[in-house]
């Protein structure tokens, strides 16, 4: 959003009106009611001044001049004043309520639409957009888009109000009308100048608020690191720099407000004074009455405030347009994961085939250059009911591979087939019904244990318990205060890492998947418990009822690898070796190094200790060679 220049203004305004028109079309009835109510309010505001002018001329002044009055005249004046106010009150209440209604309905419906779109868009799209941005699209941007809706009916009413006020003043006296035609456009112009000066500065302050919040968020989230490295003071300075920038921006906003608000208040007052002066002269010539003078002065006083509503709408428009562009950016995002209409089998273990798969992360939205190619020409297969272990050093692309197997993302080249069907041809929901991934990082919903395991799947509690048992989670779940109904809290905050992993495992198992993909899914679980889990899986896999499961497991532990019929060894995104564990030990040096690392270390340790002792006995300082 460039700072509002005089040239940029018309398109922004036009765009803004287009955005608001979307809302008018979506909520025609509520919007109409609010505008009608606003018009009623406007008309009654002008009428109030007329009534007071009339009361002054017909009731007050005659009484003061003659020294007596009638009950009838007084009652008439009072009734007129209160009656007009009652209508005005009706107008203001209706306007505010229905304006709010339109705004809230639009916000709600776009919040829903944006979030639904998030749920629809493929994961690859999510990878390209930072989490914070997506959250603000669904919240702050939607809010900004529809923010002008609240003052909009008022502004429409004000235009109407100005028209009748102008007519009413012209009808009273042309000379006084000239003052009005000078003052009101002046107020409107000052207002526009005000909002134009304010909006870039206010936007900057808003952005700085977000930045201050980001720094605080990151700094507190990394609190342990800050503490253990003693960097509190440096963090405070980093925060102070942002906080002071925000302070200066807020003061800049204040300066603009502080200047324009008094000007906007002084203008109608100066207008009233001018009316008094000119009106008195006109009075002298008999063109006006004292009642007219009161009427016009009072009208100026009443109009001074509502006329600012025009400014409020204008102030919100640039932010609204930016918000709308961002929201549309999400709603118009294409690249939804296309689905085919092929169905997968239902009850026997799946056959998995990975053919020549290549994958690269697309560069993030801002900078970063090209993506990092993570997988190159990866091929392997798993026969129904078999277990394949994926082994490889840190950062070799194992997790990415697992996300391809359940079609969280599509490969750039090559294909993943289940029962001979390319995953891209499977109908919506088909892959999830057949294959389950337990990711390395557990995500739990702020829901009950049951809700987290079933995720809406309609299964009896016995099956939930069965899955928990298999995941070795039945023990601790039974010990929870509410059992299956226990709330696990935001992101499972009340559970330990190992407990969360076991719930995530149960979530996969309760679906009785035909392909189970485990991505280092038991890393936080005690080795003994893990061994029990793996034994259970092994038994379930070879269950005699024919409902077996094909398993792909990412692992380092030999016991886990030991369960596999075949091992796929990945190195820097390539399959460098495939085969049985024993075979790979023979043929692949990298694999051998990796899985035998501990034994080798142990052997060298023993050798090293002896050597080390010798060296210590000899010369000092040779320790490093000794262990190297």
């Amino acid at each position, binding site marked *: 959003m460039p700072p509002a220049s005089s040239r940029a203004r018309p398109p922004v305004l036009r765009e803004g009106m287009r955005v608001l028109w979307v809302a008018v079309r979506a909520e025609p009835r509520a919007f109409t009611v609010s505008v009608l109510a606003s018009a009623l309010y406007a008309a009654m505001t002008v009428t109030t001044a007329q009534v007071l002018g009339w009361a002054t001329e017909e009731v007050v002044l005659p009484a003061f001049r003659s020294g007596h009055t009638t009950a009838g005249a007084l009652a008439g004046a009072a009734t007129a004043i209160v009656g007009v106010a009652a209508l005005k009150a009706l107008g203001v209440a209706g306007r*505010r309520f229905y304006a*709010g209604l339109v705004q809230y309905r639009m916000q709600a419906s776009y919040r829903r639409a944006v979030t639904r779109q998030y749920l629809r868009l493929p994961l690859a799209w999510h990878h390209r957009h930072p989490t914070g941005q997506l959250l603000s699209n669904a919240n702050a941007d939607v809010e900004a888009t529809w923010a002008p809706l609240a003052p909009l009916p008022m502004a429409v009413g004000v235009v109407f109000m100005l028209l009748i006020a102008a007519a009413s003043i012209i009808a009273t006296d042309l000379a006084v009308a000239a003052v009005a035609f000078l003052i009101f456009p002046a107020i409107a112009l000052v207002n526009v100048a005000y909002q134009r000066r304010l909006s870039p500065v206010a936007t900057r302050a808003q952005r700085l608020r977000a930045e201050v919040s980001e720094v*605080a968020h990151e700094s507190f989230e990394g609190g342990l690191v800050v503490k253990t490295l003693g960097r509190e003071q440096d963090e405070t300075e980093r*925060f102070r720099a942002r906080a002071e920038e925000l302070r200066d921006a807020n003061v800049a906003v204040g300066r603009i407000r502080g200047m324009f608000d008094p000007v906007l208040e002084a203008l109608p007052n100066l207008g009233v004074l001018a009316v008094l002066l000119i009106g008195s002269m006109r009075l002298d010539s008999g063109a006006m009455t004292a009642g007219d003078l009161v009427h016009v002065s009072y009208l100026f006083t009443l109009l001074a405030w509502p006329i600012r509503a025009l400014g409020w709408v204008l102030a919100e428009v640039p932010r609204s347009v930016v918000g709308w562009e961002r929201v549309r950016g999400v709603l118009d995002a294409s690249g939804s994961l296309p689905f085919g209409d092929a169905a997968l089998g239902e009850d026997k273990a799946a056959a998995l085939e990975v053919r020549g798969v290549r994958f690269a992360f697309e560069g993030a939205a801002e900078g970063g250059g090209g993506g990092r190619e993570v997988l190159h020409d990866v091929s392997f297969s798993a026969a129904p009911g078999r277990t394949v272990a994926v082994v490889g050093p840190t950062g070799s692309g194992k997790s990415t591979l697992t996300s391809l197997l359940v079609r969280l993302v599509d490969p750039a080249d090559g294909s993943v087939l289940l029962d001979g069907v390319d995953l891209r041809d499977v109908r919506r929901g088909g892959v999830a019904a057949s294959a389950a991934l337990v990711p390395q990082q557990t995500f739990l919903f702020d829901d009950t244990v049951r809700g987290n395991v079933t995720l809406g799947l309609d299964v009896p509690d016995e099956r939930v318990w069965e899955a928990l048992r298999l995941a070795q989670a039945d023990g601790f779940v039974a010990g929870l205060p509410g059992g299956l109904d226990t709330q696990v809290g935001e992101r499972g905050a009340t559970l330990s890492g190992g407990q969360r992993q076991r719930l995530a495992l149960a979530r996969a198992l309760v679906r009785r998947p035909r392909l189970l993909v485990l991505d280092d899914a038991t890393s936080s679980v005690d080795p003994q418990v893990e061994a029990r889990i793996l034994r259970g899986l092994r038994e379930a896999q070879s269950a005699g009822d024919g409902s077996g499961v094909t398993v792909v497991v990412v692992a380092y*532990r030999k016991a886990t690898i030991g369960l596999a019929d075949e091992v796929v060894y990945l190195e820097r995104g390539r399959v460098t070796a495939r085969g049985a564990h024993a075979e790979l030990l023979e043929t692949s040096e990298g694999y051998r190094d*990796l899985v035998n690392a501990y034994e080798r270390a142990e052997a060298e340790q023993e050798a090293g200790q002896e050597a080390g002792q010798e060296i210590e006995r000899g010369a000092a300082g040779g320790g490093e060679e000794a262990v190297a």
Partner: protein
Amino acid sequence: MTTLSGTSTTEGALSTLRRGLALSPEFRAGLPVTLALALASTAGRVVVPIAVQQTIDKGLDRAGGPDLPFIRTAVLLCAVAVLLTALCAYAMNVRLYKSSEGGLASLRVKAFRHVHDLSMLTQSGERRGALVSRVTGDVDQISNFMQSGGLMFIVSIGQLVVASVLMLVYSWQLALLVWVAFVPLAFVLRRFQRIVSAAYTRVRERMGDLLAAVSESVVGAPVIRAYAAEERTGRRVDETVDTHRRMQTRAQAMVALTFPVSELVAALATAAVVVAGVLLGVGGHLTAGELVAFLFLVTLFVSPMQTATEVLNEAQNAIAGWRRVLGVLDTVPDVADPGEGGESLPRGPIEVRFDSVGFAYPGGPPVLHDVDVTIAPRSRVAIVGQTGSGKTTFAKLLTRLMDPASGRVLVDGVPLDRVRFSSLRERVVMVPQDGFLFDASLADNIRYGRPDASDGDLAAALAELGLADWLEGLPDGLATPVGQRGESLSAGERQLVALARAYVAGPDLLVLDEATSAVDPATEVRIQRALDGVTRGRTAISIAHRLSTAEAADEVIVFDAGRIVQRGPHAELVAEPGVYADLYASWTAQRGI
């Protein structure tokens, strides 16, 4: 749980205000002048009624037509008054913004620093994001109030006072009448405000639910895809969005009611003024100009009433926010830096001694009992035990992230709580299991351990740790951005960075809390070996879940149920029956095929 100070949540608004103002002197700087300017500027609001009254009474109410010279002078004087008061308003506004924003900025920074000074337990006892709100949303709320509501509040009060004074000058009877109409309204509005405020609280609560639901659908995207839970998640979002909208509408209905009420009261007051004024005027107690001036003065009562609910709401939120910020500042850090009075440790290998140390988390059962152990300088020690046996607690006490409930921890013979943080954090560094990375480059993250390290130093450090190959494989080397929380790297890679970060800090005692749990075995062994080399001459303590670390250590300390049950070199421990032999058996079983 150790939580933030709760005593201040019940204190009165005035006391909060007083303490808050006292805390940041910027707030009070030049306050008398600002208030004087405020009073002068509100006087501008009665210029028009005075002009109207003067014109009608002195200018028009004359036998031979209007007294134009008088009116001209009066209008001119009034115009000067309007301009002067506008100038005062400008000066007041700027002064107020400057002092309030200055005060708030320093409050923000103070609170931020204080959060970092709070102990790890206090920090983690707070809900995610709550501490962030203390230095962002809560302070912003005060700022919002200062910028609009607070200003309106000052102006409204001034306006009511000045208008009332003028009314009394014109006619005490009519002034009384106006007061009688508006005072009950003020009470009604105060009640109203409570209802509205409660309604807004519900809106905010539902907003929290809404944000949580939206955030789940973004953060949980992989799981939602993998389990086809889109529809279910979508329904939840819809529900929270609609509940939030209903609450908003309900609150809006309440607010929409306050406006017509004050319009009607104002009309009643106006009608009463006209009727009573005429009757008074007929009796000769009031002039026509004064009566008309009253009509203008009544309008000055309407806007404070109309904005009262909003201003009071904002004020309430601001006070509540301020109270929460003060609550943070009131919380005494339970693990405090002895500061200047503390001792500074000379550099060199560190000896650690635990002197009958016991620990329990607040409100929980004891997790460590009577731990007595001495770790010799230059030794490499492995801590092993089952999950929940007290290993991590031991490490946290050792690095003074927490203080023991009983007993003492000593480094080089000095009680840990006597050691200055600046000295302690330089010499003792822990690498936690989940090493948090900042959204910056790889180099910046490693340099976090030693700000003056050059890129060459960093590359050299990685090479010393045996990570040169890994660094080479990264697309942009040290300049590679790690993403938010380091999420562009794999879990194992993040641990490598965290380790390197601690290593460049060059501590004399390095504590590793399962710092390589997500790293592949070959890399782990390589790092372990590299560490053995580079930590020679320093003290190193590793909490290990892979017993390979224990095999390489000089000494193994075995924890079971909060006690040290065995200690000695691996070779000895594995030979005798006990907890360690059992752990080792299950470890080797895991490794076998």
